């Protein structure tokens, strides 16, 4: 049964970003649009990753997924760190919500923001190329899993960080490199062998590769393998997040 407490927390976390949608939804859509205009303009006609797919068409799913990931992370992490620093997290900590409810409410709200921004990016960028949807279910599955993973990572980062600069470090030294080196802007098969191997260790690569497979029916890795890896990654992160919540780590001293 879905409890009222859980629904309320999902609602609150969603309302929180909705109230500042210019900053939380419109701004990242504009950023993705700028990436498309610049990289698309520079690289269109010079790079072809898959036969019959233009660079712009290749880039769009990467940008959409990048937006999903970054915004899911931003939602849970910024909500938690702000509540911790201003002290109003106490309103959640005093409630009878279970660890599982707190975890899933933060992650679901993060997913909502990630998917809303991703859909927005797709809507404004899809005009620039002929997009195909070979396997829409893969698109949906990887978008949801990617959003859930980054929402969970945001939750973990928000619990761990005690200051804004610690959260910024987490974002700049972990999330950003993993995202940019996952094949958003290129196929990892164009990399030298060493970096190709390294890229295979990056779970973000499988999210983007599987997501892209849904559009073109082509990918660097079989989507079922990506699904297994991404699913396992989510399971491990979720267990870690729930463990942190139930131990009270940095929340209940």
């Amino acid at each position, binding site marked *: 049964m879905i*409890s*009222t*407490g859980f*629904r*309320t*927390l999902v*609602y*609150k976390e969603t*309302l*929180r970003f909705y*109230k*500042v949608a210019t900053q939380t939804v419109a701004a990242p859509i504009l950023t993705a649009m700028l990436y498309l205009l610049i990289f698309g303009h520079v690289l269109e006609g010079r790079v072809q990753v898959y036969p019959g797919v233009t660079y712009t068409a290749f880039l769009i799913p990467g940008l959409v997924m990048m937006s999903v990931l970054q915004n899911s992370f931003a939602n849970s992490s910024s909500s938690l760190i702000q*509540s911790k620093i*201003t*002290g*109003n997290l*106490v*309103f*959640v*900590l*005093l*409630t*009878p*919500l*279970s660890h599982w409810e707190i975890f899933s409410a933060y992650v679901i709200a993060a997913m909502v923001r990630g998917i809303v921004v991703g859909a927005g990016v797709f809507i404004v960028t899809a005009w620039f190329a002929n997009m195909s949807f070979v396997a829409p279910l893969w698109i949906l599955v990887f978008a949801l899993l990617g959003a859930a993973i980054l929402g969970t990572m945001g939750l973990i980062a928000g619990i761990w960080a005690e200051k804004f600069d610690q959260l910024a470090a987490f974002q700049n030294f972990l999330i950003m490199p993993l995202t940019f080196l996952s094949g958003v802007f290129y196929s990892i098969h164009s990399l030298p062998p060493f970096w190709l191997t390294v890229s295979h260790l990056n779970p973000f690569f499988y999210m983007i590769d599987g997501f892209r497979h849904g559009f073109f029916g082509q990918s660097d890795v079989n989507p079922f393998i990506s699904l297994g890896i991404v699913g396992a990654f989510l399971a491990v992160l979720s267990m870690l997040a729930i463990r942190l919540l139930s131990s*009270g780590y940095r929340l*209940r*001293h």
Partner: protein
Amino acid sequence: MTAIQISNVEKRYKSLQALGGVSLTIEEGEFFGLLGPNGAGKTTLISIIAGLIRPDAGKVSIHGHDVTGDFRAARKKLGVVPQELVFDPFFTVRETLRLQSGYFGLPNNDKWIDEVMENLDLTGKADVNMRALSGGMKRRVLVAQALVHKPPVIVLDEPTAGVDVELRQTLWKFISRLNREGHTVVLTTHYLEEAQAMCKRVAMLKTGKVVALDTMSALIRRISGSSLILHLKNGALPEDLRHLVTHPEEAALGKYSLRINEVSEVEPILARVRESGAAIDEMQLQNADLEDIFLQIMDKGAL
């Protein structure tokens, strides 16, 4: 029935012993005061009751539910007004209260929310964003948030610190009403006259230990009795009465506060003063209050 059971609770922050084995039993329907100087461990104890801090040892239960093992049931029974003036700047007063009510599983609670706002003089601010409220108004919202789920046990951590007289009166009227209706109230405050007026029973904490625990009336009776205050001219207090003086530093002004247990002790003292040749300029008989007791206990460490 026991509202809050605290058994041998200990908490240490590195080298600082914040609580050194505190045990208290607070019965249902009590109006209980938790007093002590800054750093005595009051807020730590309240935070442990609320599940915000985990004790190193000992147990706390609310209406029989352990605050860590059975935290969901325990927290449903508890409303806590935190000491820090915290708020969520994204929401209005009404949104804040509806959300808090929802967390406790009460989605359609507007009738009670309206009543709480009415009683705390918040109705006019219902649709104002939290950011735009004055400190006193934010404090009212904090109290309202603690009450949205009609908790049988209400804990207020210095709810009147830095607030005006009007709010204090509004607040105490409402809290007294809830107490009369059967809610247990636990209060920490720096205003001792407030504790004296409201609390039936008090515990005094000093450096993490309970140094006094009794009903307010027994505490006042037991510890200091009353004071006979004499202003003398032409002479000083006879030597054999000096052991009764509670504030020797006032002697230079010709003022002597003497501790007495009963009114019948007044006459012999006056006779002895007259005998010594001193003249009484002014005389006052003062009942002990909580402040005297508090200072005495905090000076001595224990009863």
